[in-house]
């Protein structure tokens, strides 16, 4: 008789259970293992989604449990899609999303390209660069608030040092023109290392032999960069864009900490607006419709993007 761990486990299984299992097919056993996960997924993800869709057609307010819940059809959707304030919020979100992605991809890729070179202290620099993404967004929001302080903030002093302007003459988080850039800068500082790591993985996956062959063909470094590095790292870059896009579409904590959505509504992103509707105004039906619209938008865009990503990978 063998004495492997599996045999031991079989021996320890009570006779009743082992008899029952012996009569089950492989498929049935697989279902037994998968069922808890599927049940959990249904309970945690699918059921709330269906419930939210149902609520989005009602005037339900969670803070008025005694009120009658009326079926309002598409009224919530119509109100949201015709509300100019919500379109302004969408615009602010798009501005934030586009610029953070552009900056993070450019800077992240450049850093990855530099870090990919072999030099002394490479590991130390990688650790230092990655440090911001290890912090909590609330902490980052808090200390950038201090950095942006016109009287004592380091950021204003640095800008003043290079431009000669009075540090107290501008307020990054209090000015309608500067506040959208204030949140972009803070987010870029925090999440560029993440993009860098993905790009670094992409760059390190390119075999040296391809570059050696290019050298033999007397291809310039510039040409190698555009015809080898970029195309081969592109799927990784696109993956980074996908991750950052989804993450920043639901950006909340950092911006709330930095600007609270202000000045005015300048930095009120959709997630902040949705939270106000759902948990401050308690318009549950309305905010459910809002959430459904955002979900469809993100899901739709992400699906199109993933298809494009797969095509790039197939090339």
């Amino acid at each position, binding site marked *: 008789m063998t004495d492997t761990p599996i045999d031991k486990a079989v021996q320890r299984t009570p006779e009743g259970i082992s008899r029952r299992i012996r009569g089950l097919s492989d498929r049935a056993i697989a279902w037994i293992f998968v069922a808890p996960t599927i049940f959990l997924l249904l309970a945690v993800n699918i059921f709330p989604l269906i419930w939210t869709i149902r609520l989005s057609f009602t*005037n339900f307010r969670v*803070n008025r449990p005694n009120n009658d819940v009326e079926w309002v059809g598409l009224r919530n959707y119509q109100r949201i899609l015709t509300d100019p*304030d919500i379109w302004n919020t969408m615009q602010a979100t798009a501005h934030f999303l586009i610029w953070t992605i552009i900056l993070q991809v450019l800077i992240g890729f450049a850093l990855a390209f530099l870090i990919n070179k072999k030099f002394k202290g490479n590991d130390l620099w990688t650790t230092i660069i990655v440090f911001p993404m290890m912090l909590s967004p609330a902490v980052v929001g808090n200390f950038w608030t201090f950095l942006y302080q016109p009287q004592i903030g380091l950021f204003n002093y640095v800008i003043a040092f290079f431009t000669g302007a009075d540090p107290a003459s501008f*307020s990054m988080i*209090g000015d309608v023109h500067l506040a959208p850039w204030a949140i972009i800068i803070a987010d870029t500082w925090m999440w560029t290392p993440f993009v860098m790591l993905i790009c670094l993985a992409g760059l390190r996956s390119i075999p040296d032999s391809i570059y050696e062959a290019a050298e033999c063909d007397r291809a310039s470094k510039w040409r190698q960069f555009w015809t080898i590095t970029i195309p081969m790292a592109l799927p990784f870059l696109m993956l980074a864009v996908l991750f950052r896009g989804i993450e920043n579409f639901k950006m909340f904590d950092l911006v709330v900490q930095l600007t609270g959505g*202000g*000045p*005015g509504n300048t930095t009120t992103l959709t997630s902040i607006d949705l939270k106000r509707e759902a948990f401050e*105004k308690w318009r549950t039906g309305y905010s459910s419709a809002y959430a459904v619209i955002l979900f469809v938008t993100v899901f739709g865009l992400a699906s199109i993007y993933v298809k494009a990503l797969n095509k790039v990978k197939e090339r």
Partner: protein
Amino acid sequence: MKTKLMMTAATSAMLVSGLSAAAMAEDLTLCWAAWDPANALIELSKDFEAQSGHTMSFEFVPWTSFADRMLNELNSGGQLCDLMIGDSQWIGGGAENGHYVKLNDFFAANQITMDDFIPATVTGYAEWPKNTPNYYALPAFGDVVGWTYRKDWFERPELQSEFTETYGRPLSVPATLAELKDIAEFFQGRDIDGTTVYGAAIYTERGSEGITMGVTNALYNYGFQYENPEKPYDLEGFVNSDGAVAGLEFYKSLYDAGSPPGSSNWYMGENIDAYRSGQVAMQMNFAFIWPGVEADENVGGGKSGYFPNPAGPAGQFAQLGGQGISVVAYSDKQDAALEYIQWFAQPEVQAKWWELGGYSALKAVVEDPGFATSQPYAQTFLDSMAIVKDFWAEPAYADLLISMQERLHNYVIAGDGTAKEALDGLVRDWTEVFEDEGKL
């Protein structure tokens, strides 16, 4: 033998009474904001624990997330809190949605009368509907927006003479909002002891209720009214009257010309920090901060003075703060919670509450002959409580507040549109809310 028997009987009786007391002892949880007065309440409640045998636990949440956290708790029928010191604006929702226990019968049975409390606090913290004898809370903490100023700076001869030369009057506590703005402008960007200082720290916060709690101090005094006094929920011409527009323009001009750069999202905490660190000559803030100012080594001990919100062309009013204490309807320890309220309402407990830094709303405390001189800010507190006005306390107060926050911040801080457009927009928002509520 007889003695032994008696001792046994006595011991048994003690044990039985002890056990019955232990069986009745509850662990009560009181929910409030995390701020200085909450610490004073912990101290005060030790007496209750000693007297009643109940134990007290506390759940304190920072102001910026207090409403979110606690309203979530109430709306979900949570049993975390047995006692809630909820904001004054919650009283309508607390009453109509059944979150708070109605206290009329309890007050009647225990000889607690609302006539014993400052009238404004009864209306503001306890009654729903307003001005009707239906009570859902006991006034717990009187609070009001007032001003703190650097008395030591105001008294400097060189500043006195320069101010008098410029404005033709001495540098002193402002009697009007216009005078306050002059003083703020006078200090703005001034060098004092080698440090650049600014005029006044005012409320500008966007996320919760900050800018509304600040701007109303100008709006009320320039003629803003929440509704037509003759016709409830009739807003046009009252919310956006010429006076209200002038009040909003005044606040913006004060922000633009007299507040520290970068103070675009400031509320209680930021104002306190700016004042304590010597950045500003004046700060707008709720009265609860005054004991802390007095005790502060930089600005306390006679360096600071206090004054009520100055008058405007339409009168002198100040934004009411403060809270009442309610029994949460979902608590299964309501008897013990009511016991706490009964204990808290006693005059001697209220007197100790004031001593510890809590602002009692009991007339017996504030009308005591020694009260006005008991602290440097006591008279200002009394004067301020006499001129209070409060925000809507409707069940839909949050919708009304968020609209106001947005409209005010857009105009005052972001400089978007005109004051008239902001208030016209507010009328539209509020009308929509009241229509949704079925009140229009």
